């Protein structure tokens, strides 16, 4: 019994032109498949995540690159710790840490050119800091006095995206637009690449699939980095996807999929760098899945002990990206105590700067700014509301002058 047999009861079978039950492929009646049939081989990720540390390839790594990766990982770890502490102190409303994922966070800034664009999520503030934004500016959103503390155009970093995977579509559009501009205007920057950061949970969202569809069809110079940190808040990857790997998802869209150990900083650097250059060279989009782990909870407001075991966390702590690279550097004789102390001091300097800037009271924000950036020019409705708010604030500041007595303890207005 086939589906078509079952539909005979509703009168579908036997109609002129309806396909018969054996109509499963090309026949002498002409082609029945319309699509481009690409060999999926080159698009497929390898069976295991790419690793460098602990393999013979690690011996060939450039010492300066290793030291840079180490320094950035250590500073990144300290940044995560300090931001988490600031959240616990109430200086930030919330903080979604990328602790354990630092290798994925520092790599984007190292492989992107100045003219490239980064599309981060709320968890990717370290990636934004790595690209040159001050911690106080990227954390301003979590501090609560503004929605965006940095200028996206100046840094070529889109605003932090909270609705999952939506920014992946933006990355495709920007990459497409950049290529159109480069083709039509000689003064436009050449070879611009857009890099979108997403988590494993985001790969279930419709926008993720639409972004990959568009990226494949437009052959846009865009790279998607999926940081598979094991959990979408509390839901483990096994309940999120039945795909062999998340990198396999790329192939169905005609997009190259690559799988990398997300805790192996040289591996992430190499695979993401190759993906970006692949896209830059016009060979099409790439989806990189980095297998990593969220050592902290989803955010500072979450309790991860409710959904995962201490044993699991301990096993991943043993594969901490900072630990992995320090072990390699020590074994290779590239990290002595003095060098380690220098990096540690730089990390403490970063933390002190964060405490000094974010520990103080947030800057005063003019309430009139509420109405300033809704439209290019405020509507008459917004101008009225702005005037109403300004009058209310003036009255609260000086009730005697206006004859307005303020509010009573119960919260009701007293006139």
């Amino acid at each position, binding site marked *: 019994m086939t589906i078509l047999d079952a539909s005979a009861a509703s009168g579908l079978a036997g109609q002129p032109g309806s396909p018969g039950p054996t109509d499963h492929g090309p026949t002498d009646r002409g082609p029945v498949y319309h699509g481009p049939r690409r060999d999926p081989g080159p698009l497929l990720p390898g069976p295991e995540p790419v690793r460098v540390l602990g393999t013979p390839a690690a011996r060939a790594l450039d010492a300066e690159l290793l030291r840079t990766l180490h320094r950035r990982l250590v500073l990144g770890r300290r940044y995560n710790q300090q931001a988490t502490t600031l959240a616990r102190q109430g200086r930030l409303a919330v903080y979604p840490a990328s602790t354990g994922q630092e290798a994925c966070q520092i790599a984007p800034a190292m492989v992107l050119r100045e003219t490239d664009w980064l599309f981060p999520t709320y968890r990717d503030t370290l990636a934004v800091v790595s690209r040159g934004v001050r911690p106080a500016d990227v954390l301003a959103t979590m501090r609560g006095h*503004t*929605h*965006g503390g940095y*200028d*996206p*155009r*100046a840094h070529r970093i*889109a*605003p932090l995206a*909270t*609705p999952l995977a*939506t920014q*992946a*579509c*933006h*990355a*495709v*559009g*920007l*990459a*497409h*637009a*950049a290529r*159109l*501009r480069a083709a*039509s205007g000689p003064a436009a920057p050449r070879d611009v690449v*857009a890099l979108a950061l997403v988590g494993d949970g985001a790969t279930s969202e*419709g*926008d993720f699939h*639409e*972004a990959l*569809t*568009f990226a494949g*069809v*437009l052959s846009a110079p865009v790279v998607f980095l999926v940081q598979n940190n094991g959990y979408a808040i509390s839901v483990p990857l096994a309940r999120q996807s039945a795909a062999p790997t998340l990198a396999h998802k790329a192939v169905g869209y005609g997009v190259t999929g690559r799988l990398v150990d997300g805790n192996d900083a040289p591996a992430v650097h190499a695979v993401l760098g190759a993906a970006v250059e692949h896209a830059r060279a016009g060979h099409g989009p790439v989806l990189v899945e980095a297998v990593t782990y969220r050592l902290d909870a989803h955010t500072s407001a979450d309790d991860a002990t409710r959904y995962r075991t201490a044993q699991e966390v301990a096993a991943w702590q043993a594969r901490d990206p900072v630990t992995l690279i320090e072990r390699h550097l020590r074994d290779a004789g590239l990290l002595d105590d003095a060098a380690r102390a220098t990096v540690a001091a730089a990390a403490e300097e970063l933390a002190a700067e964060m405490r000094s800037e974010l520990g103080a009271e947030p800057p005063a924000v003019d309430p009139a*700014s509420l109405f*300033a*950036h*809704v*439209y*290019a020019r405020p*509507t*008459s*409705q917004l101008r009225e509301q702005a005037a109403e708010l300004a009058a209310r604030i003036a009255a609260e500041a000086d009730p005697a002058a206006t004859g307005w007595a303020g509010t009573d303890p119960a919260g009701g207005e007293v006139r």
Partner: protein
Amino acid sequence: MVQALNAALRDSLRADPDVHVLGEDVGALGGVFRVTDGLAAEFGAQRCLDTPLAEAGILGTAVGMAMYGLRPVVEMQFDAFAYPAFEQLASHVAKMRNRTGGAVGLPLTIRVPYGGGIGGVEHHSDSSEAYYAHTPGLHVVTPATVTDSYGLLRAAIASDDPVVFLEPKRLYWSTEDGLSPAEVARAEVGPIGRAVVRRPGASATLLTYGPALPVCLRAAEAALAEGWDLAVVDLRSLVPFDDETVCAAVRATGRAVVVHEAAGFGGVGAEIAARVTERCFHHLAAPVLRVTGFDIPYPPPMLEHHYLPSVDRVLDAVARLQWEQ
């Protein structure tokens, strides 16, 4: 009207190399309503881009294009097909300027053919304007005449803010007597945000927009026989809302009926009635009434004539405006 919209797109594409049209079927087919007819042939498949069938992807891609400085014009084939893109619209299109402290505006135009009256089967006749009008950061524009279609679409594409441009499907084939395409293109419609008095009157004011405008104009003609001289105001823009023109027209008559074909509950008409009441209460001789679609999903084609505001329903409402005996 289709030709005027087509001319507006063509002239915008000619005037500004940053303007790009994208959507499902906008290329070789020229759109299911032919609004993009011939654009791919003149401007190429890149500037009039046939996209995959994925509305969130279409709008999300357009957001990225706009972030890079282009002026995308998106077609959402039918009103109800735009819903998958609503998250992009509400979370990003409407908020990008605000979220970036003014650093990144999105000069996007989203064309949505909307409304019923064409015998469309389900999902082809929704009036979705309240969803958009309720979302701060969007302009919501809906022309009802051929000249407005041209002028307002040019203005929408030139706007530095995102504009949801609602095209009344059942007026697509309407014409304007005696006007050549060149005259349509030259007609002065003013900036987005201005309502226009289509017909002066002294007895009561009909406030309407888009597909209900011709209904209201016919009702005003018919009302003369009953002794009522009705003014008709075409809002043209729901956001920004032209309080000034609307309130002046209502104060002049002391009575008002809001007419639209979307469901009434929580609809744009409720907002208009509230605004008019707040601003004109002491000029009003009667409550502001509404003539709208029923609070039901849009009906099947054979029943839609019961649902759509008709001349009779408009006149019945006018009759209920507490006239002195």
